[in-house]
């Protein structure tokens, strides 16, 4: 791929690497399903050690939170023309119903507006192919072009 290749296309071909490079995403067993312009679909399988309600076996809402946060971040990145550093401003999640025990959860995130400084993203999480019956919905905003330097957080705050 040459330099004319859109960022999201480069991301799409490096989909697996994007998860491998994120320790928590790897620990949850997250997978990139697809990356297209300003859009990311990421999924996570049900697992015994991710259960949040031992009585019902329903996956923890925290896993859905991390999945949604992650997919929103990837969608924001996929809306860029060149890579920059990003920081999550806020994340709002509505949990409509518990996910079915044993079901894979898929998050579909779309960066529907990108300004010079802020990316606005919406996402839904599903536990089936039925897109009228989501498990959760998210709305996130990201600051783009933050000047975070590599290794910044290795030092304690000033």
């Amino acid at each position, binding site marked *: 791929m040459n330099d004319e290749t859109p960022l999201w296309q480069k991301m799409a071909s490096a989909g697996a690497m994007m998860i491998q*490079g*994120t*320790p*928590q*995403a*790897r*620990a949850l067993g997250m997978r990139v399903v697809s990356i297209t312009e300003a859009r990311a679909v990421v999924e996570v399988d049900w697992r*015994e*050690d*991710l*259960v*949040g*309600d*031992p009585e019902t076996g329903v*996956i*923890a*809402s*925290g*896993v859905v*939170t*991390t*999945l*949604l*946060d*992650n997919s929103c*971040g990837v969608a924001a990145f996929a809306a860029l023309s060149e890579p920059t*550093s990003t*920081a*999550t*401003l*806020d*994340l*709002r*999640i*509505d*949990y*409509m*119903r*518990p996910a079915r025990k044993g079901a894979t959860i898929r998050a579909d995130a779309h960066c529907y507006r990108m300004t010079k400084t802020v990316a606005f993203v919406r996402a839904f999480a599903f536990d089936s192919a039925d897109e009228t019956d989501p498990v959760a919905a998210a709305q996130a905003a990201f600051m783009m072009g933050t000047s*975070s330097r*590599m*290794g*910044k*957080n*290795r030092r*304690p*705050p000033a």
Partner: protein
Amino acid sequence: MSETSAPPTRVDLAELSAMFEAVPYAKFLGVRLELKGDELTAILPYKDELIGNPMLPALHGGVVGALMELTAVAQIFLAQGGKKVPKVIDISIDYLRSGRPVDTYARAHVTKLGRRIANVRVEAWQFDRADPIAALHGHFLIKSDEGAV
């Protein structure tokens, strides 16, 4: 800040920890609880797999959110005197600074404990409690026998 109408029955740390330890995901993250009087602190000891951005490096935002959710659940459980485990309806998280690769703490305040809904605020910090890394406010269902959640 409103107070609950009836004084809750006391829940001790053993009871609270038992409820918490039965949750596999709390173990997956490694969250533990500390209770001093009626003040509850959740602690998330640092481990490499909690990282979301390896370049800075910074904790995954979802992990910080999940820690605060769990803290809220434990605090409501405490405020209710340990009945049912509350279920999350919605949360809103402000990320204030990136989470460094160190232990993280969280404390919750139940703003209102209604008959069906609890309103909760949570803050998470690392070095200085007055300088939180994230804040959450959310609504939790405390009677789940009739709702859809």
